[in-house]
Structure formats: structure tokens, C-alpha cells
């Protein structure tokens, strides 16, 4: 009788453990899809930024030297493969800062035909890249915290999902474009 009762208890404990593990696996699954969505959003924002930068470089608004530098940087950012991506995107940030560091550059771009739209789009893009990156890295961080847990490692709850990596880059926008006191803000 007692052994039967024991068996029953063990069965109940096992069942509870199984439900808990399955719930954790569901949580992990949801977190991985959140990373996927955040990464897709980040890619979209980076691509948008590079496209606007390239448009500006080819619009015959900037001087030829600045145009060439900016075109190069934007082109590299769009073409870079996964390993070189973070560096190429950081270089685009640096180039944009250098181009807009010159006093009066922003006004000069604005005055050109179609310049106001370019500035508005670029200002929106350089603001959204850090946002999207922060959301992405935030979801990476919380997923990593859960995946480091003993139960997840022991029971391989993460399956074959790759270890999530943060996206590290220099995303500091040019100061004149980030100015929210009525400057470049739409």
C-alpha cells in the first residue's frame, strides 16, 4: 500500500515537472520569436538609413568629396555580410556625423530642391536605428538570462536555436539631426 502511494506521489511530481518544463520551453520559444521580430525591425531601420544616405550622396546636394565618402559608407553598409555588418554600419554613423559636423551643412541640404524631405527622412532614420537596436539587444539579454539557467541547459529546452547575439555598433546620430529643439525634428 505504502509503495503504491509512493509511486503515485512520484508520478504526480514527474507530471508537475513535465508541465513546468514544457511551459518554460513555450516561454523560450516566444522569446526567440521576439528576437526574430526585433532583428527584422533592426535590419529594416538600418537599410532605411543606408538608403536615405545613398540618396543624399547621389542627389548632387553635397560637395563631390562628401558625396563620395557618404556613398562609399552607405554602399558598404548595404553590402556588408553578417560578420562585417556591425563595423560597416558604425562607419556609416561616423561618416554621417562627419558630413553634418560642418556648420551650415544642414541648412545647405535643406535649401536644395527636395532637401527638406531628405533631412526629415534621415533624421527619422538616425533616430530609429538606436531605438530598434535597444529593443533587439533587450530581448537578446532576457533570452540569454533564461537560456543560461540550469533547467534549460540540462533538458536542452532551447533545442537547436542558435545562441542569441547582441548587435553592437556605434549608432550615435549627428548632433544637428538629433537636436529636438525645433531643428531637424519633423
Amino acid at each position, binding site marked *: 500500500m505504502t509503495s503504491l502511494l509512493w509511486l503515485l506521489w512520484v508520478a504526480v511530481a514527474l507530471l508537475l515537472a*513535465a*508541465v513546468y518544463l*514544457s*511551459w518554460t520551453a*513555450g*516561454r523560450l520559444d*516566444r*522569446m526567440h*520569436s*521576439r528576437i*526574430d*521580430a*526585433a532583428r*527584422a*525591425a533592426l535590419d*529594416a*531601420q538600418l537599410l532605411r538609413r543606408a538608403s536615405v544616405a545613398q540618396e543624399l550622396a547621389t542627389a548632387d546636394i553635397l560637395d563631390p568629396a562628401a558625396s563620395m565618402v557618404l556613398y562609399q559608407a552607405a554602399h558598404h553598409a548595404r553590402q556588408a555580410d553578417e560578420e562585417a555588418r556591425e563595423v560597416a554600419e558604425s562607419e556609416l554613423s561616423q561618416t554621417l556625423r562627419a558630413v553634418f559636423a560642418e556648420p551650415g551643412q544642414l541648412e545647405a541640404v535643406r535649401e536644395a530642391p527636395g532637401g527638406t524631405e531628405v533631412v526629415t527622412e534621415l533624421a*527619422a532614420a538616425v*533616430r*530609429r536605428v*538606436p*531605438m*530598434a537596436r*535597444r*529593443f533587439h*539587444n*533587450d*530581448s537578446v*539579454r*532576457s533570452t540569454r*538570462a533564461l537560456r543560461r539557467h540550469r533547467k534549460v541547459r540540462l533538458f536542452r529546452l532551447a533545442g537547436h536555436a542558435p545562441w542569441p547575439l547582441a548587435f553592437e555598433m556605434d549608432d550615435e546620430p549627428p548632433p544637428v539631426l538629433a537636436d*529636438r*529643439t*525645433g531643428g531637424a*525634428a*519633423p
Partner: protein
Amino acid sequence: MRIGIVCPYSWDVPGGVQLHIRDLAEHLLREGHEVSVLAPADDDTPLPPYAVSAGRAVAVPYNGSVARLNFGFLTAARVRRWVHDGDFDVLHIHEPATPSLSVLTCWLAQGPMVATFHTSIPRSRWLVALYPMLQSALEKISARIAVSEYARRTFVEHLGGDAVVIPNGVDVGFFADAEPRPEWQGGTIGFLGRIDEPRKGLPVLMKALPRIVAAHPDTRLLVAGRGDEEEAVAGLPEDVRDRVEFLGMVSDEDKARLLRSVDLYVAPNTGGESFGIILVEALSAGAPVLASDLDAFAQVLDGGEAGQLFANEDPDALATAAIKLLGDPERRAELRERGRRHVRRFDWSTVGADILSVYETVTDGAASVAPDERPGWRARLGLAARDVPAGKEDRPS
């Protein structure tokens, strides 16, 4: 864009979070979006057309005071129906770390979710105890917004994770265009806030007042806010008492006109502020601001660039700064001008665009919001196919 906003506090009780949500909803509607706000409200409370009642909030003791909260099966069913019927592109949840409608919605929905943390979260015992449970609801949030760098810092320390900083919005034009009232002009100091709430700092200002009046005998202090007026002036000498005028509760219009009229606005708050919307309103109205050097206030005032700061809870420092400012019209004009420029970043046109950027960032390539259908035990054990909610299967991977 179809946006669902969840307000954790009763719609019929005025408060900072409710006002923020109302202004945000109205701004988004003006921009041509579809907005629905889910909020606790009594059945007979008149609600604006965009708001949906989640039922009456129940008063329970929580965190040392009485809070009005919603919970239970009935509320859960209402939340689920709202999420289902709304078919939102994005959910915007406010204060998700409180036991309220907000955490319930986190629990019951899935899809792109944005959360705004208004107050800095105290490290309370229940938060530590319930952390694992709360965590599984909070980790569904795809983007977090903190209203100030200060709120973000405490948030990072207590809950982990990161947030973008988007300040609270103010309708700058409403305050800038208000008509000053002559009877509130001429050597006046303004104060707005609950009189009997020590954290709002009126006692500090009262202690500083005799010195200010001694230096500038024409000075009048205008106090707008609820509370016991007799008690507030009890510690003052008779002749200084006459220099204090109580206006009681004022309407939004009168608040704007008061801020437009005064020569100096004083915010002596001693703590518990995570943003300081009143400072932004005062700056919008062009009032020179003198505020205590709380982290949140220093941030709103750009480290003292857009307004003057004094050492918190120090009546002497307040009096010295106020006397100097009242005797220096040039400095006040300079502060007015700096404030006017500084305040543009808090205008709804800027703040609203930033919040929309967040919505667009999280909805890019994501399915829309849906109720979170938990798979039954058969699905969990692999005996039956999992139900895939509509729209979820085309998620990018």
C-alpha cells in the same frame, strides 16, 4: 495604425498617467490613427468615445496606501474581449509592473507590445517574491519606454533590460497662448500642487517666505491646489500670512493663465517625482522656474540651463535664489527665453512622433495583437496539434 492603450488607473480619478494617456490618445486620433483606450471606470462615468470601460476598480490596501485596482475573472474576460475585438496592430501598456489591468493585459495578449514606465519602480518585497511570475508576463513586451533618464536608470537596476527615453508630452501652445490675468501679476510667486502633501514641498516654501517678503515686500505667493489652507499658513508670522493667496483647485485654463502671469514659479518638491510635467508646463507658459535639485527635475531643466535649481529641502537656499531672481528682471527674461526654446522637445508633435516611431519599429514585420491562447495539456504533451492563432504563421524567422 490600430492602437490599443491600457490605462491602469481609474479614468474618473485625475492623475498624471491618466492625463498622459488622454493627451496621447487625442494626439494619435488627430494624426488619423484608430485608438481605443481600456481603462477602469464606474459604469456611470461619462467616457470619451475612444475609451472602453474595464469595469469598476476595487479599493484594496496596497504598498502602504489604498489603491483602486482591477482583477478577477470578469475583468480578465473583458480584457480578452477587448483585445480580440480591437484587432490592434500594437498594444501600448502603461505601468505594467503594478498589479492592475496592465499586467493582466500583458498576461492575456500576444503580439507587438509597448510599455511605458512612468514612476521609478521601488524595489518592493512583492516584486522580488513574484518576480518569476511577473517576468514571464513582462518578457512579452517588445519595447519599453521610460519617461526620463532617471526612470530608465532605476528600471534597469531593478528589473534588468533596457528602455528608450521619451519624455511626457505637453501641449506647449495651450500654455504659451494663455491670457495672463492682471490680478495675478506684479511680484507674484506661483505654486501648484496638493497643499497637504508634504512631498510637494509647500512647507519648505512657507519656511522660506518670511525672508523673501522681507527682501521684496510686494511679493505675493499664489497657491493653487487642494488642502487645508489654515494649517498651511499656521507657522507664518501674521504680516507674512497676508502675502499668501489660496486659489483652491483651478481649471486647466486657469492653471495656464496662472503660469503665464507669475514672475516666478517655484517647485519645492522633496521627492517621489520621476518626471515633473508641471515644470514643462511652467516653461511652456514662459514662467521662470526655480526648482529643487531632484534628479528628475534637474533632467527636465537641462541641468539648470532652462531653470534655476536649489538644494532640496533647504528653505534658506530657496529664499536666497528667489530673492536674487525677483530682483533681477534680466536674468528672468533670459530664463524665459531659454525655457521657451528648451520646451519644444516636450511638445506633443515631437513626443507623439517619437512614440509612433516606437510603434512602427515593433510592428515592422510582426503579426498583429491577439489574445494569448494557451495550448491545453494535450497540445503540451504533443498529443494534439497546437492551435496557431490567425496571422501568426507568417511571422518572419
